[in-house]
């Protein structure tokens, strides 16, 4: 029997061999974030780079991470890969970690590509508080990857895309790109109810030494709480799916 870590790495390798070139990963995970980064990196400069850039990094991470996990879980459920994994001597935990790892790597790669494009457009990005910057990247990539895993495990692929896009596009506006002050008071709580505000503010404080929605300590606590909640939901739903 292999250890959980080794099993997760084998599943990660399998998913990358199978799915990295799949249309949903390319379109939603790479092309869409790149387009939005180029577009808003150029036109959003008027809002202030400190507002736009962290949001764009977080949005890129969200789309790249969740697209990869959605494909890795959804396609495996449809094509028989998940059925094959269920009957190998690996724990459900290893399967969840293996699936989520692909999303984390894609999420970080998405943020890296966005950062490279934005640096090319506007000059090198500042990093005033590296620990907060790293915390934003880590909690964000983990949360968004597990979010894609949870939704894809709980729903069949088409409703999963719909649910995922509803959440993702909500987060583009609420917590992602729109300044808190620009949101009408009635809908502002939505921003605080979604993880994007906390992740983007961690990145914002890490890069530009300022924040938009919540102070850095609240952003860190909020991000961690979201991460734990999504991890619990993803693990519980995966266990229920793998061993009904």
């Amino acid at each position, binding site marked *: 029997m292999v250890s959980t870590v080794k099993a997760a790495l084998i599943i990660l390798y399998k998913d990358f061999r199978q799915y990295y070139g799949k249309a949903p990963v390319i379109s939603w995970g790479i092309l869409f974030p790149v387009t939005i980064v180029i577009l808003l990196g150029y036109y959003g400069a008027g809002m202030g780079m400190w507002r736009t850039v962290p949001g764009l990094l977080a949005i890129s991470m969200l789309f790249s991470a969740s697209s990869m996990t959605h494909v890795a879980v959804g396609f495996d459920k449809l094509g*028989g890969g998940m059925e094959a994994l269920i009957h190998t001597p690996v724990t459900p935990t290893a399967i969840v970690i293996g699936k989520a790892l692909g999303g984390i790597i894609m999420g970080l790669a998405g943020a890296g590509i966005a950062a490279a494009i934005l640096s090319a457009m506007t000059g090198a990005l500042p990093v005033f508080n590296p620990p907060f910057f790293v915390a934003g990247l880590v909690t964000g990539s983990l949360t968004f990857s597990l979010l894609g895993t949870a939704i894809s495990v709980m729903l069949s692929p088409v409703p999963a895309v719909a649910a995922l896009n509803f959440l993702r596009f909500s987060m583009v506006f609420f917590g992602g790109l729109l300044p808190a002050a620009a949101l009408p008071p009635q809908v502002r709580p939505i921003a605080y109810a979604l993880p994007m505000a906390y992740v983007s503010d961690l990145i914002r404080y890490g890069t530009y030494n300022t924040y938009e929605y919540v102070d850095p300590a609240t952003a860190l606590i909020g991000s961690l709480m979201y991460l734990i909640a999504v991890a619990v939901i993803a693990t519980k739903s995966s266990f229920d799916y793998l061993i009904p």
Partner: protein
Amino acid sequence: MPAIEVENLTKRYGRVWALKGVFMSVEKGEVAAVLGPNGAGKTTLLKAIAGALRPTGGRVEVVGVRVRPGDPRVKSLIGYVAEGPSFFPELSVEEGLRIVGSLHGIGGEELRARIEDIISELGLGPHMKRKYAHLSRGLRRRAEIGAAIIHDPPVLILDEPTLGLDVFSVIALRNIIRVFAKKGKAVVIATHNIAEAMSISDRVFILRNGVVIASGSPKELRRLIGAEEALIAKVEGDAERVAETIPTALGPRVEGNTIILTGPAHECLTALLKAADAVGARVVSVTTKELTWEEVFMRLLEKRSREERACQCPLGGR
């Protein structure tokens, strides 16, 4: 020690009981078939044996190891071929086998040798570099079996293994199963195909509504209904009325002016002549034929239904 021991296994999905107390035992080197209509609980039973679902109650042991849901130790004792696809569509057969082998903790030279053996044993040589998604149904089944036996498990479970396969693939698959059993391994097959189950199995479990209603070797199952042959009688007169007068335990069936009975020959003949006499009909000719497995299966289901009705009358008044 049996290869598989199932005791009073139950599984409930919401309000529906998929398994209502299944008992089952399969020895090493034996091929066992689980036979039953749709919704009988066959897949649920196989998944419970493989530790791929949480039973509501009861106990399962595989080669003496208590099956606990999701336990990797149990999974390394079992090879499981699911009813639907269970491989990696975008990977080649060889690469898929390597992934599964690695997840079983096999590596290096040993894994390479195992893959070579399996590929040659299953006749996958010319297809090993092809993607699973591009293979025919029969070849996909072989790839799935390859993945199920890569760790050389003592127990192999196959859910509807011949569904949708052509006759050549079915023959090849039967040979693979026989070879596997000859190595002293236990094989369990769930199938709708009665003739297939009877031809390949040493032991058959007939499952209906989550309960094993009959089990034994194919010969024993024939004996259970008390007949190996059907009596076919041509009748002049009202065949329907003659059949109605014959005891239902002999399973009278009417096809035109022919009455078919299944039961001990002398009982069938006596009942037939008595019934014909009673309704003023004449028996023109009587022949016998060996019961088909489908007829045996139907008779067993009927027998069980009669027994259930008989049991319910004094208690439930139904």
